[in-house]
């Protein structure tokens, strides 16, 4: 069993999270940062530092922040209403502070249960803009490069949902996600055609991540090379990869 098979075929050599520029850009003054869930300045800082690109967008606040904030609160409220079910699936809502939600994904079908990755979903200018999805390390919240991704978000009879640009920053190539609609290849598939249709909600994004990236995982695998044993996640169960 080869744990390397989990890496996307197009993966370049691992560049490490440190290759992603870490700049400190403060949000626009008009953006009200108000904690909805949890209270941890250090966690706030970790999340903010992990999403440099997202925070750069904050300087482009186009929508009245109170509107985005109300829609953000609705998304978090809906999540909280069904949270016990989501926890059973291995979703752990780490923090929800406008405009970002940090969620960790565990794979409870595997024992002992690994925490696979974290995501930060950003609702800046939501829902005039689609929500942005960034993949982060589950404990440091540092952005993951394509080579560091533990799962490819497989789709049956189709390319994986995980794609990247030349900068090796992975993104979820799915309708309802900002990175998909901002991609030049999808200029004919604008977000505004899907806004308010059930696409791109917090639940729908997390559900896609779970179904395509976490649920197909079945266990650990190991690889023996040059007298070294490497343990990682095993290959996905093809029958559990959604269409």
């Amino acid at each position, binding site marked *: 069993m080869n744990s390397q098979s989990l890496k996307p075929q197009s993966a370049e050599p691992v560049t490490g999270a440190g290759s992603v520029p870490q700049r400190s850009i403060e949000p626009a003054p008009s953006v009200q940062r108000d904690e909805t869930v949890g209270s941890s300045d250090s966690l706030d800082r970790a999340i903010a530092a992990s999403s440099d690109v997202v925070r750069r967008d904050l300087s482009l606040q186009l929508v009245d922040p109170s509107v985005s904030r109300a829609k953000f609160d609705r998304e978090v409220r809906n999540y909280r209403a069904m949270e016990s079910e989501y926890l059973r699936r291995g979703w752990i809502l780490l923090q929800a502070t406008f405009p970002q939600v940090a969620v960790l994904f565990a794979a409870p079908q595997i024992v002992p249960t690994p925490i696979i990755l974290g995501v930060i979903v950003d609702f800046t200018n939501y829902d005039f803009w689609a929500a942005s999805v960034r993949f982060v390390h589950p404990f440091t919240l540092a952005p993951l490069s394509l080579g560091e991704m533990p799962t490819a978000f497989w789709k049956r009879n189709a390319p994986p949902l995980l794609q990247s640009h030349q900068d090796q920053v992975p993104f979820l190539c799915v309708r309802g996600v900002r990175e998909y609609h901002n991609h030049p290849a999808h200029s004919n598939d604008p977000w505004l055609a899907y806004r308010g249709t*059930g696409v791109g909600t917090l*639940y729908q994004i997390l559900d896609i991540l779970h179904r395509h990236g976490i649920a197909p995982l079945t266990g650990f695998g190991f690889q023996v090379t040059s007298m070294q044993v490497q343990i990682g996640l095993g290959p996905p169960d093809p029958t559990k990869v959604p269409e």
Partner: protein
Amino acid sequence: MHPRMVTHQAEGLRMNTKDTLTVVVSGTPVEVKANENEELLVIIKEALKEAKQTARPPEDWTLRGSADENSTALSPKSKLRDYGLTLASTLWLSLGSGGGGAQ
């Protein structure tokens, strides 16, 4: 009688008289009036209307008896009782994932 038993009986009575069903529409839980003998398509339409998700037709949505990814999609022409579900169950309506280069 122990007070807890009274509480449990009251809960049981409430469940038996429940005439609404919880449907989670793309993450939004809504309550819809339903009975166990009507077609699921009726419930789907009601849930979409309640969740104000009428931009896409019912055929675009998949109904499941649980959020579990392994649960089978429920046929809109079936009834709740065909799957052993009751009004105490929670149904999940979800959209597929477009993208990945194959839409």
